[in-house]
């Protein structure tokens, strides 16, 4: 057993080393941009997976928290000159607080109707930011003042620094997931995901556990929102509350392996690489091709491999282990 753990730690260290060196070796800004997208959506997927994967509360409204995080830090920066580093945490807290009433409403429904309620709340938030111009610039949105190189304001020259920021976020998300997986909370979540009524019957306080995990998930998603607007220097309701963010958060987790630590990361690597390849082959002119391919991948996974890529890898690994002694 100790051997396995040693190998796990070693491979984790190797992976970390590769990821840290990567932007120094591959310096093309196009490639780093793709890496940043992969890390960012892995992180959003990890945040979604905590609630959607382990507890099977399938939200398609995580754009709500992405947008709240993005808007909180931007309003603090543009109107009050407060650093986005502080704004990022503030955005997370705003999202956490917002998840309380939203969760209170949506958790009244189960299964598919929970999913619909989350879509509706995210859309409603977008409409609020579109409609109330006094709140935050309305439909035109705003650009974020470019201060050149200013690490204290989360603005960097070159893309490598952004890469390290989002790598840090992903590490944080994975660490939190790992801690939760190892704790009682993790078991409660899986129990709720398997059968909520049965979990309650054996004494799991399901409403409380769901509320807590929704808060954590919302907090992390909001951090991604702040990072994203700092990276693209622009915010408007259609970008910050884009339904595609909600879709991709769920999609990468399901394709990679729902309710597993590394599932969202593997799913994102597959989907984002596919999308980047499609774009370089076909150009960005063909609207709809990216999501058409995503939809086909998603359908194939659901029909043939509901455990996702992680499930495939685990199966292959088990077959390999079983065959090994026979060869020796």
């Amino acid at each position, binding site marked *: 057993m100790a051997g396995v753990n040693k190998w796990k730690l070693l491979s984790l260290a190797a992976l970390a080393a590769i990821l840290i060196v990567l932007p120094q070796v591959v310096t093309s800004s196009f490639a780093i941009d793709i890496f940043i997208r992969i890390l960012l959506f892995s992180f959003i997927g990890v945040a979604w997976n905590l609630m959607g994967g382990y507890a099977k509360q399938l939200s398609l409204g995580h754009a709500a928290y992405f947008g709240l995080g993005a808007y909180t830090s931007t309003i603090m920066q543009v109107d009050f000159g407060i650093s986005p580093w502080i704004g990022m945490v503030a955005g997370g807290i705003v999202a956490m607080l917002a998840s309380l009433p939203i969760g209170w409403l949506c958790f009244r*429904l189960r299964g598919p*109707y929970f999913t619909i309620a989350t879509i509706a709340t995210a859309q*409603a938030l977008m*409409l609020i930011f579109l409609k109330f111009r006094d709140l935050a610039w309305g439909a035109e949105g705003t650009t974020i003042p470019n201060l050149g190189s200013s690490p204290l304001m989360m603005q960097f020259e070159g893309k490598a620094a952004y890469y390290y920021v989002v790598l840090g976020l992903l590490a944080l998300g994975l660490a939190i997931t790992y801690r939760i997986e190892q704790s009682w909370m993790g078991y409660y979540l899986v129990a709720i995901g398997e059968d909520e009524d049965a979990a309650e019957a054996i004494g799991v306080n399901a409403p409380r556990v769901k509320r807590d995990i929704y808060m954590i998930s919302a907090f992390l998603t909001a951090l991604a929102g702040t990072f994203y607007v700092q990276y693209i220097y622009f915010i408007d309701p259609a970008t910050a509350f884009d339904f595609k963010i909600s879709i991709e958060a769920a999609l990468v987790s*399901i394709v990679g392996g729902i309710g597993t630590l590394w599932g969202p990361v593997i799913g994102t690597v597959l989907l984002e690489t596919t999308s980047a390849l499609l774009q370089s082959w076909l150009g960005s002119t063909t609207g709809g*091709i990216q999501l058409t391919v995503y*939809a086909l991948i998603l359908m194939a996974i659901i029909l043939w491999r509901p455990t996702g890529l992680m499930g495939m890898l685990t199966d292959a690994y088990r077959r390999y282990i079983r065959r090994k002694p026979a060869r020796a």
Partner: protein
Amino acid sequence: MLETVVQAVINGLLIGGIYALVSIGVTLIFGVVKIVNFAQGEFVMIGMYISFFLANQFGIDPLLSLFVSMPVLFVIGVLVQHFLIRRVLGPNDMPQIFLTFALSLLLLNLALMLFSANYRTVHTSYSDEAFHIGGLYIPVAKLIAFVVAMALSGALWVFLHTTDLGKAMRAAAQKPDVAILMGINPNRVFCVAFGTALALAGAAGSLLMPFYSAYPFVGQVFVLMAFVAVVMGTLGNVMGALVASLMMGVAESLGIQFVGADSGLIVVFAMLLLTLAFKPNGLGGGRVR
């Protein structure tokens, strides 16, 4: 003032009839097959494009193309149920949600690739006609759509309550295990339910075509309305969905009239959230799931 209110209510009822066709389909599938079809709106879109192409290529009136769009979508529904949905039925709802969601994503983006995002319209002789009664204004195309929608809903009710197949469908909805013991073939019933629901969506598409534009995202408008109406009208309840859809149409229309042109959706979301907060089992009571 009163006239404005009455006019807004009439507009709302007329479009509410179309919402009813979509939400009755959603609630029928939910009641019988026990899944939520996230792709229902995309089948409305397919119905619209069928009518658009028949009108554009052969000059067939969108109302007549009802006789094409409904059977075509019925067949699509049977195929979708038999080859896709059947494989994910069971207690685990994750694959069900994401299978129909993937289907919606696929159809929408295929439409975007094949037909582009352009708005397509069909102009008929009655598209601009209207009845003027007192100071009120009733567009002919919308009135026809409303009357046909109500007739189809009535026909579905008669079908569910008088025919053997309809009764089998209601039996399978109420107690699936017992229905199987009584010799009802569940897959056959599910196929008919799914086909019927999609035929209604196709009918909604054809009926919309004389006064509404077809574009790839058009289904999203209707499906959102339908989901809210289905929650309000108690899940799985056909009459509830019908009444709630008409109410939603009226609420949206009043919202547009008195709050602002782009406020229709805000009113709808507010209704959903209020329903969830105070009457999570739907306005008529009943059980959640």
